[in-house]
């Protein structure tokens, strides 16, 4: 193999196999699982604000090339990123569809009922990326090439606003989503199998978009807790069972224990994937602000619950002004 052939080896690996054309609508979705509120998202506006250079592909650049008679040596290092069009032909439309799927899957809203809300999403970044280093040496007809590539990684970020029917902003914040094949295996997603390294990068980008969509719904959930639950008022005041919860050390899971209020008996223990944003430090037992992982209690509802529990149990606001720690029976 001549030197030119060696030089082109990595480029061929990336570019010769026809990459799969993906769509954001194929992303795996992981979002909340909560009681529905009397509100609905009437409009989803997505604006593409990605920087223009993020839409172009990237490949490793030469750090040096040494060519001396029969000796050739080169070193390339840099980021690898496919063209943005490969993971979405129409990012605005596909993102709108993805967000609608995430909203419907969460069951947080009740279609057509209650307050009509508008969700505005300004997409700031979306890409799949990796990093590669290629060292080549060729002399006297012998060539060696060492390539080191890092795992593909997907990243997405957006500025999100949720407005009520009067145009008042209920949410105004940044949300991110990411995909790491080593830890996001639970996302799944229906994208086609990767045939080339480029495909693994576009797969990462699509899954990052899905993670972003799910996180956007999680991010707007606190603001929606002011609307009544469709099933009726949350069963806090007279419930015979209350719940304590702790974030586990081993990943994004919450351990929830159901306790009989009168007897103090533990009647259920479940570990569920944490669909909400974190509400306490790791391994700290708190009175569950999501009442058994079902529905977020308003500050007033939660405070009433804490006062009721304090009659029989050691419950105190310690380091957090909103979430009370549980220390057992009095």
């Amino acid at each position, binding site marked *: 193999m001549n030197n030119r052939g060696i030089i082109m080896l990595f480029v061929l690996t990336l570019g010769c196999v026809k990459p799969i054309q993906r769509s954001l609508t194929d992303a795996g979705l992981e979002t909340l699982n909560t009681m529905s509120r009397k509100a609905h998202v009437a409009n989803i506006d997505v604006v593409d604000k990605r920087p223009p250079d993020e839409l172009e592909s990237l490949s490793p650049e030469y*750090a*040096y090339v*040494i060519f*001396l008679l029969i000796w050739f*040596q080169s070193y390339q*290092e*840099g*980021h690898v990123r496919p063209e943005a069009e490969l993971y979405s032909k129409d990012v605005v439309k596909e993102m709108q569809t993805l967000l609608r799927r995430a909203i419907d899957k969460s069951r947080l809203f009740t279609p057509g009922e209650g307050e009509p809300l508008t969700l505005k999403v300004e997409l700031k*970044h979306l890409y799949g*990326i*990796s*990093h590669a*280093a290629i060292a080549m040496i060729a002399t006297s007809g012998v060539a060696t090439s060492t390539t*080191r*590539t*890092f*795992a593909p*990684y997907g*990243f997405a*970020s957006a500025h999100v606003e949720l407005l009520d029917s009067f145009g008042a902003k*209920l*949410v105004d*914040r*940044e*949300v*991110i989503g*990411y995909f*790491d*094949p*080593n*830890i996001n295996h639970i996302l799944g997603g229906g994208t086609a199998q990767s045939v080339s390294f480029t495909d693994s990068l576009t797969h990462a980008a699509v899954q990052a978009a899905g993670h972003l969509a799910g996180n956007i719904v999680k991010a707007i959930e*606190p*603001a929606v*807790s*002011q609307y009544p639950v469709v099933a009726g008022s949350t069963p806090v005041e007279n419930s015979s069972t209350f719940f304590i919860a702790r974030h586990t050390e*081993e*990943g*994004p899971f919450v351990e929830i224990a159901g306790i009989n209020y009168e007897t103090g008996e533990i009647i259920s223990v479940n570990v569920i994937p*944490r669909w909400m*944003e*974190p*509400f*306490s*430090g*790791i391994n700290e037992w708190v009175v569950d*602000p999501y009442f058994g992982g079902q529905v977020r209690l308003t*500050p007033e509802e939660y*405070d009433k619950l804490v006062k009721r529990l304090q009659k029989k149990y050691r419950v105190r*606001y310690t*380091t*957090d*002004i*909103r*979430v009370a720690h549980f220390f057992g029976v009095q």
Partner: protein
Amino acid sequence: MKKLILVSLLLVMGCATPIGMYGHNPEVLWLMKTEEPNIEIPRYSGDGTAVVIKRFENASLVPIGGHFIGEEPCSGCIAQSYAPYGDISPAIYEATVNILRANGYPVWKDYLCDPMAIAGPIGYKSFLVYHGVIRELEIDTFQDKGPLDEAARTVIDFEVLSSDSRKLSTFQITAKVRIRRGSGDVLEALGFRVARELAVKLNAGATL
């Protein structure tokens, strides 16, 4: 001529700062000296204003995924490390607020971050709210033919709000740390440094 080329080659290979993954240049972290993870921060000497520090939002672009380290330890074998599940901003947040409280600072956490105005800590009629957004967060692992080092850097934008959610002021904190792997948690160590920067603000007057 051959010697010149050879020396140039060696210089290029040996002195170049390794390029970080995913668009980041870890020169700052690479050049740092290794330190102890935990540091002391000054005891509280402020005006007693209670401050509620909301859970840090993470708006940074830095990935937190798994990493790939070369088979041989070398100064070029850089990889993004530290792959905890889920959010990582709570680790920095927890360390920051816990170390401040341990040193007598009147600060409280607000994990739930309700968008509406909050009641504040018990016993305090007035209080301030610090709302932090992590703009940059970089975590790197370095190998240099020896034990691994871990390093982290962050930039956090803060808004200072009144108890009725009026914006009073803004400020920015930057913090960085490099520790020996196994000597502690690098995000916790970073939290200590963030706490030290916040301590300066709180002692000078919480609204500044």
